[in-house]
């Protein structure tokens, strides 16, 4: 490897902080439960602060990985500790740290085995963050799998009545799918090694061979096999119909904070996996399988909505709504159009906010009435007006009301699906957006029904003296509501930084070999004067604050074809279909 180890930087701090926090919490005696909760909250706050400082350092003007760190791990197989972020992972990292903060906050309600609980939450946080920053396939797999144990334990110990079944099902389902991804990863690295002669699991290095066409030329069968080994793992995690059956059980049985994290972050690992690995690494196989994946996404949207409408249990309803909403994410991504992929990625964040908030609200309700069945509820609006108002906003954000975040994501994803199917790109038909549109209506049906059953109608006499939300609870939910509005009114804040990366990813999938963008594995930065510099790796024992060498690649304006001020403009014209990339549309283009 020409690259020198970089030592540990900001992202490593982000990963290490919760891990050290877990150790610190483990050292506090069980009886000081307040100290444990306080420590967990402070650590979560610190992690959130670190992630904000990452946001501050992030350069939105390049799609390349930033803050890259590299250390060798298992050298004989070319497995490294290689982490970095780009626009796609940036927001997921922030979403993770934010939702974690909220769920730790909510977890002040936990009274049973407090220490173990927060240790698990902290371990889970490390694993989730690791998934989003890994640039090495095996490192990604490591974090992907490592998240299973803490999540399963959370369900097991603090879950509902059917928790044993739910935890084991969750574990086996996801493990079974991802072990084949591991075999796929090894096969991929082996095929890559045949070309270069060296073993590596470095995402950027393998993608380089995909981009120049060396890896998959004339091997569509092999490419498809490896693609499906990845896709299966991500489809289960998403989850896509028909691999969704673990989700309702796991979500329903998990403790509230677990559900928030599960819905908010863990599901995103699946869609993130598609964006990060499937699109760049298996372009031809992706295009081949668009009809299948889009079809399953639409089936998931409709099926999830219908089944959700039938649920007698409010938490189960929200769980099934996740199946439908994640269908929209997949719909957007696999439309492979600019607006579709932006919408899909944006919908990931919205789903994290709104479904996370729904689970949180259901959890708050459960703490008061100790039931989740609609049959026991009704007429709560008069009892808890503030709660009802917050619930309404979040519910409408989930429905996709304009002005709230859910609308923007769903709209862009739908727009992408329409654009693609109007020109029959990649074998899509008009049935796809039409049925997805029906799904939007169905979402309104079951969510409004839910609101009606909980808040209107006859009051259950047992629930006559309910207390409304306390101030801290209002603030907690209010944070999420704030983001629901922010995301709906000013989506550019969130879409802007991720647009470059998304577009590069899209072009990696739909361009011809040789035209595909590449990642630079050393990271690029745009300086204030507009010059593009390649940040060469730092010395391991050298001064960490300064790069050893800066190589100026281009002076002057570093220009991208897409105007960041107008994110919703659909770039592909009517002629843009399969392989719709126009040369020169590649991001990262530099005008001199």
């Amino acid at each position: 490897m020409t690259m020198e180890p970089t030592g540990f930087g900001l992202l490593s701090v982000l990963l290490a902080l919760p891990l050290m926090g877990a150790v610190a919490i483990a050292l506090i005696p069980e009886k000081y439960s307040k100290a444990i909760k306080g420590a967990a909250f402070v650590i979560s706050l610190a992690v959130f602060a670190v992630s904000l400082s990452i946001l501050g350092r992030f350069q939105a003007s390049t799609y390349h990985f930033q803050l890259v760190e590299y250390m060798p791990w298992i050298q004989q197989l070319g497995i490294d500790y290689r982490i970095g972020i780009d626009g796609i992972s940036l927001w997921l990292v922030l979403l993770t740290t934010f939702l974690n903060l909220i769920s730790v906050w909510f977890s002040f309600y936990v009274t049973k085995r407090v220490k173990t609980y927060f240790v698990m939450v902290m371990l889970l946080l490390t694993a989730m963050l690791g998934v989003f920053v890994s640039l090495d396939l095996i490192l990604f797999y490591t974090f992907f799998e490592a998240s299973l144990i803490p999540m399963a334990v959370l369900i097991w110990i603090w879950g509902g009545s059917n928790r044993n079944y739910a935890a084991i099902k969750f574990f086996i389902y996801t493990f079974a799918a991802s072990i084949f991804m591991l075999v796929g990863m090894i096969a991929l690295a082996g095929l890559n090694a045949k070309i270069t002669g060296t073993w590596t699991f470095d995402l950027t290095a393998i993608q380089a061979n995909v981009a120049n066409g060396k890896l998959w030329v004339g091997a569509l069968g092999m490419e498809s096999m490896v693609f499906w080994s990845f896709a299966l793992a991500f489809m289960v995690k998403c989850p896509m119909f028909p691999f969704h059956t673990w989700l309702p059980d796991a979500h329903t049985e998990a403790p509230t904070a677990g559900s928030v994290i599960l819905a908010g972050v863990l599901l995103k690992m699946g869609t993130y996996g598609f964006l990060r690995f499937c699109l760049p690494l298996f372009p031809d196989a992706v295009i081949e399988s668009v009809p299948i994946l889009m079809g399953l996404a639409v089936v998931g949207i409709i099926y999830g909505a219908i089944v959700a409408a039938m649920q007698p249990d409010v938490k189960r309803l929200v769980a099934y709504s996740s199946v439908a909403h994640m269908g929209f994410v997949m719909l957007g991504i696999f439309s492979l159009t600019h607006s579709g992929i932006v919408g899909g990625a944006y919908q990931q964040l919205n789903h994290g906010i709104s479904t996370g908030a729904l689970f949180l609200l259901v959890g708050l309700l459960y703490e008061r009435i100790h039931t989740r069945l609609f049959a026991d509820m009704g007429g709560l609006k008069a009892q808890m007006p503030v709660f009802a108002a917050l619930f309404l906003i979040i519910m409408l954000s989930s429905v996709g009301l304009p002005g709230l975040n859910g609308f923007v994501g769903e709209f862009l994803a739908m727009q992408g699906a329409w654009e693609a199917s109007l020109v029959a790109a990649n074998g899509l038909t008009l049935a796809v957006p039409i049925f997805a549109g029906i799904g939007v209506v169905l979402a309104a049906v079951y969510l409004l029904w839910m609101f009606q059953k909980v808040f209107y109608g006859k009051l259950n006499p047992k629930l006559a003296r309910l207390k409304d939300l306390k101030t801290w609870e209002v603030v907690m939910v209010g944070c999420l509501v704030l983001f629901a509005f922010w995301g709906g009114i000013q989506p550019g804040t969130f879409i802007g930084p991720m647009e470059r990366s998304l577009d590069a990813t899209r072009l990696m999938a739909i361009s011809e070999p040789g035209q595909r963008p590449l990642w630079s594995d050393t990271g690029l930065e745009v300086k204030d004067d507009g010059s593009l510099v390649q940040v060469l790796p730092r010395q391991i024992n050298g001064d960490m604050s300064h790069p050893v060498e800066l190589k100026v690649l281009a002076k002057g304006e570093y220009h991208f074809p897409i105007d960041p001020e107008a994110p919703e403009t659909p770039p592909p014209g009517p002629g843009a279909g399969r392989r719709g990339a126009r040369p020169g549309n590649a991001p990262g283009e530099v005008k001199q």
Partner: protein
Amino acid sequence: MNYVLPTVEWPTVMPVLIVVVTGILAVFIEMLWPKRNNNVIVGLGLVGLGLAGSSVLKQFGAPDGVTFGDMVVRDQVGLVMQLLLVGICFVAFLFSEGYLREKQIPFAEFYPLALWATAGGMLMVTTTNTLELFLGLEVLSIALYCLAGMSRQESKSEESALKYFLLGAFASAVFLMGIAYLFGATGSLDLNAITSVWPATTPMHHTLILFGVGMTLAGLGFKAALVPFHQWTPDVYQGAPTNVTGFMAAASKVAAFGALLRVLMAAAPLQEFWFPAMFWICILTMTVGNLAAVVQKDVKRILGYSSIANAGYILVAVLSHVKSPDKVGLGSTFYYLLAYSMMTLGAFAVVSLSAKGGKEGTRLQDIHGLWSRAPFAVVCLVVFVASLIGIPPSAGFVGKLFIFNDALAAGLTPLAIVLAVNSVISVYYYLGILQAAFVSEEGAVRNQSAKPGIGLNIAVLVCAFGVFWASFNATWVQKTATGTSVSQAQTVSTTTSPDRMGPSNPE
């Protein structure tokens, strides 16, 4: 005919000698000060094992060679396996004393017998001479027969010892018969004679050699618990005292694989005959072990079947090496044996906590709520179970990764796929253990279990730490174990070439 005294290189045989002598000393101490305190014996054993381990380590990097009239081989395979065996015995000693007291079988005989079993295993892995191999096998086995029946008041333990003895004696006889065939066909007691004699011999000889190799493999397969020679495993594992089971599971597997490696490598020229058989044995071992484990209700039986399945995984690595020795080294075999030893021994150490006041229950419901009684041990159990499942970043995961890699590199893709499927099946029963220990508490009978002593805590800590350490230092472990500088994967060197920057970037 001149008889020349064989040259003796003392350093080569020193580790075995130290272990044997320590065992003898332990017996004398027990005789002279009976029932006084086993701690002295434990201490002596630990010191002896430490010395033996360091004398093995001293030979690392020394050139390969044979001594004692070609009876003892010094090479990397032998040294690594010896070190492993010494380490296994060391950890077993750490947690045994507390367990034996709780179980009220405080017989000091455990220590010398375990030491001698270790010595037997060490002999097995450092020889290519079939008689010496047999000698080691018997020393190992006979010590283990006695150990399995150590809990004399328990009928299960008696049954376990008798079953082990009868079947083991039969397997030894088969092994001996194999040696006889080989000697008849090749005129030599050395395994390497197979390689040299094979090309020149007649079909008649071929048949004899094949019979010989087959029977030798069957005998060793019994020790390594390969299907279909595995029938004894669950019963013996269940009945034997838990510390013995842990020791047996790890040590006899290492020793058997050390010997199996030598036989298979010597028989490589005739692999067209035995390879299909071993291929199917490997698939069966993984699958039967895992499927049978799923329905078990006893922790020790589960771990017993799990050890069968793990033998299958190791066999994948061994077969990959034998199939294409130029592409696939022995690093993965060593690595997985190390990982397996640590996680299995650690898991048994935790399970040994379920003994108290002379009673022991090892059904899954007997370890319910262990978490609240011995949290530290159970946290370590989580590590062992995660590693057995193959959750990264644990040694079990990295080991499986190496094995996958070997199998794909050697063109044994079916084995890689069977291994993947089996890893999934195994999740179910491993999680069952975890669930029992860690989770289920309400409604369960509040079982008694021993307070973990300092020895047990050290033992599980060493194993749990080792599981992570070996994972993070996988490169170093493999490099040291194989004794060669592993051909470094010089990752893509094209990183700086202009085309890496993509077509749309300026050159």
